[in-house]
């Protein structure tokens, strides 16, 4: 099997499993309990918190463990809403993940909020003018993702954060895709809140992080017990927290690999596909992308069909539409970039990890050449 869908989810690293297993099997105590058995767990959770903090250059006290990237994103927006109940405006981008985007629609449709969705250009780059002009005294929060999950396009977070903070507005960034692929430094970037998700960096699914800068008046999204210093109710997901700590340690060490080995292999795949399959185009700013991501459109064929043919060859990738929902529309990201339908429908996202090899890229190319050809032969929109 060739797994090249690492922006969707990643293999749990062996080291991570080894680290968490004892806390599933043996040390099952509730970390806030009053006995030594729970203390063992609690200390290890503290260690994990320090590892996560180290990964993004935060203080351990600024790390809140959540259940996933989506919860982190929801919690960030919720905190701003609670902190500024009188402010009814939010700024996000057109290419945010549904964890921000759908929430914004909900707030707009049901809760009386006005949301500015900042557009992008054809290469997926933000329209800063719109962003900065939209800021007002009524703006509760600005949320801009660190890097886009579909195209890998990276946004200049430090620069945006500075402009937003000048106005005294809270700034949140969804760094779910940036983390582990490029360096993330919350202090250097000057962000107020930042979301991470474990399963994108070789930890298990079902664990996330919300970084909340010290000084931010945070109110919890999950309201319940005293866990996470009262900032997130619910018994701590100890084994997964410990796993995430380890995963962050590994991810930090692997960043250089991402920028060399992984980038090289990705570029190799990209070049071969562009060279050997006609009417093929890359989506997103090639000069400013995550080193592991390649979004590529094949004219006149449809993504799911390509995926099915790749699956026959044991290759796991994603298409450019939310096809699992039965929707035939290209993703909101490709639409926002005004990618023409002809290539948007035939877009495939390849997303690598350090586990991928160059040999795998050759197999992918050899599989795709005949597959695309066959589909084009039956497409009413293909004319060579």
């Amino acid at each position: 099997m060739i797994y090249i869908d690492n922006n969707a989810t990643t293999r749990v690293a062996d080291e991570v499993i080894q680290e968490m297993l004892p806390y599933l099997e043996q040390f099952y105590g509730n970390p806030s309990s009053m006995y030594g058995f729970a203390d063992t767990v609690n200390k290890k959770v503290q260690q994990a918190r320090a590892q996560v903090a180290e990964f993004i250059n935060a203080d351990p006290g600024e790390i809140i463990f959540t259940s996933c990237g989506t919860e982190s994103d929801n919690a960030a927006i919720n905190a701003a809403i609670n902190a500024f109940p009188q402010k009814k405006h939010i700024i996000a981008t057109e290419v945010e993940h549904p964890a921000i985007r759908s929430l914004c629609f909900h707030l707009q449709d049901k809760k009386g909020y006005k949301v500015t969705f900042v557009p992008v250009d054809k290469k997926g780059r933000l329209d800063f003018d719109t962003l900065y002009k939209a800021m007002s005294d009524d703006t509760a929060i600005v949320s801009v993702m660190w890097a886009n999950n579909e195209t890998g396009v990276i946004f200049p977070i430090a620069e945006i954060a500075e402009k937003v903070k000048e106005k005294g507005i809270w700034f949140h960034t969804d760094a779910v895709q940036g983390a582990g692929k490029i360096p993330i430094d919350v202090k250097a970037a000057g962000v107020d809140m930042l979301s991470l998700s474990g399963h994108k960096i070789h930890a298990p699914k079902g664990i996330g992080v919300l970084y909340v800068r010290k000084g931010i008046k945070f109110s919890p999204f999950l309201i319940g017990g005293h866990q996470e210093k009262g900032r997130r109710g619910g018994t701590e997901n100890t084994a997964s927290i410990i796993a995430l700590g380890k995963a962050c340690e590994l991810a930090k060490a692997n960043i250089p690999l991402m920028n060399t080995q992984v980038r090289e292999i990705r570029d190799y795949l990209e070049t071969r596909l562009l060279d050997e399959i006609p009417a093929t185009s890359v989506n997103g700013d090639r000069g400013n992308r995550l080193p592991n991501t390649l979004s590529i459109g094949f004219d006149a064929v449809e993504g799911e069909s390509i995926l099915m043919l790749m699956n026959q060859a044991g290759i796991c990738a994603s298409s450019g539409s939310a096809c699992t929902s039965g929707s035939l529309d290209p993703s909101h990201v490709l639409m926002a970039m005004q990618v023409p339908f002809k290539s948007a429908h035939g877009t495939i996202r390849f997303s690598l990890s350090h586990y991928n090899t160059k040999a795998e890229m050759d197999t992918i190319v050899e599989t795709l050449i005949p597959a695309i050809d066959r589909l084009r032969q039956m497409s009413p929109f293909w004319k060579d």
Partner: protein
Amino acid sequence: MWNYSEKVMEHFLKPKNVGELEGANAIGETGSLNCGDALKLYLKVNENERIIDASFMTFGCASAVASSSALTEIIKGMTLDDAAKVTNDDIADYLGGLPKEKMHCSVMGQAALKKAIADFRGIQILEKPGEMICECFDVTDLEIIDAVKNNGLENTEDVTNYLKAGGGCGKCLDRIEEVVHKTMATMEAHSEAE
């Protein structure tokens, strides 16, 4: 992943009757590039209105390809009158069923066939009147309003049971509910006025 039947996979991986058909005298096109789903159906019809050959070109997902392939197999050898009775359910059945989110692929097959027959007969097919509500099952608001008024439907579930609309991907459910509510409100207003 979709729970495709073996038959679907077979017709996707080795579709029958692919390509333009030389000497075709009836062509039906449906869908579009923008929709992400399109089918061009070619028929060769003899003087007895019997389909002696059929082929297709399809842009779409695995089940769109499979539905097209199945359709051509089903209708080859039929008279146009018999072919006109082929429904999307026949196509789905032929394939051992389709995931409900993919039923629209069989609807596309049926639609292209209708158009091809009309093309042969020189008839102009009018677009269905009303606004399309459920793309999976090709149901418009007028059809729903009609069913609510005449068949005593009261909620989305009734509509799905009666017209199938909403029983696929489900993305139209909210709009169905809206139509049902509005229609019932109008009916009440009327009966009160009487």
